[in-house]
């Protein structure tokens, strides 16, 4: 894929921070549907023998997977793209009813400089859809926002049994990673 977004130098490597913060929170399970914006975290988790990395066929599998891991006493995180949020909707009733902790990190499509309009409907409905199902959301559009938002969401998920999602905006992701 060719991208016209220029590479800008940011002193903050938020992609690595995501992994480091989740390790600090003792995350033992990482369930995901692949996305370029999560590539660094996915690679680091896949290489980490202390963490079970679970590649899903559809994002909704991640909700009951993490519920099961939580029943067993472990913490986990779900990584996906915004289009996958639509696949999770009814399954979120599990978290909602049983008050399982849920931490989702969602890379956005359809919210800035989107070239593929097929990504727009779900991307633009992502935050509202999550909110409707009882998931709290925070948006990160700049590298320095990632760390405090992931930390805050992880705290509320794991200490307060809340469903929490951090949305990683296209303005954040577009600057890096997709330029190969």
């Amino acid at each position, binding site marked *: 894929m060719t991208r016209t977004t220029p590479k800008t130098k940011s002193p903050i490597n938020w992609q690595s921070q995501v992994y480091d913060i989740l390790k600090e929170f003792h995350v*033992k*399970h990482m369930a995901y549907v692949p996305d370029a914006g999560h590539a660094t975290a996915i690679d680091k988790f896949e290489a980490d023998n202390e963490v*079970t990395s*679970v*590649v*899903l*066929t*559809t994002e*909704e*599998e*991640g*909700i*009951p*997977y*993490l*519920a*099961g*891991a*939580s*029943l*067993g*006493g*472990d913490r*986990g995180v779900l990584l996906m793209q915004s289009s996958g949020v639509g696949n999770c909707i*009814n*399954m979120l*009733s*599990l978290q909602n*009813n*049983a*008050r*399982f902790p849920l931490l989702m990190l969602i890379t956005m499509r359809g919210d800035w400089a989107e070239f593929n309009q097929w990504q727009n409907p779900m991307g633009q409905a992502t935050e509202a859809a999550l909110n409707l199902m009882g998931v709290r959301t925070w948006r990160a559009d700049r590298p320095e926002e990632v760390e405090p938002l992931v930390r805050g969401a992880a705290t509320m998920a794991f200490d307060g049994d809340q469903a929490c999602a951090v949305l990683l905006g296209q303005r954040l992701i577009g600057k890096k990673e997709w330029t190969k």
Partner: protein
Amino acid sequence: MTEALLKRRDVVAELLKDRAETIVVTGLGSSSYDVMAAGDHDLNYYLWGAMGGAAMVGLGLAKSRPNHNVLVVTGDGEMLMAMGAFATIAVQAPKNLTIAILDNGYYGETGMQLSHSGRGVELDKVAASVKFDWTARITDMAGVADLRRRVHARDALNCAAIAIDAVEVERVLPSRDGVYIKNRVKAALGQIL
């Protein structure tokens, strides 16, 4: 059909006999009632919704509790909604997970409409095709007893489709309080709530 079909309550009672520390996850509807009818237990996690989620709850438990037997008891309709989960679970291949599908070929809860398995889809062969360690279609009680031994052996990822009849039985209802059921399981596993 030439098979003599099994009675769902007999099947589940046999599977759960002397269950010890086996953790059981049930799919919504009749499977939950069957497990409840066999005797409520602190290590039962009953689903009343989240259709298609039972097997993945089981996977999460199996991966986080490798020293426990984890048994998912669900129906053909519930598992048909989780066709992708067969692949996800097979890739992880935990040796302490068994998926027991009570297969009557119908959507019982909604008025006995014929399901895909009732129209020829063989769920045990789906599991075999994604490389579960052991799969079978079980048509007699000896097969159920064998499956129970496999649950306790913890040496393979198992999936069985168990041919049951479609006769309606009395509903024995577990608690619908998801938080209560969750905390009961966690406490039984020694977690501080």
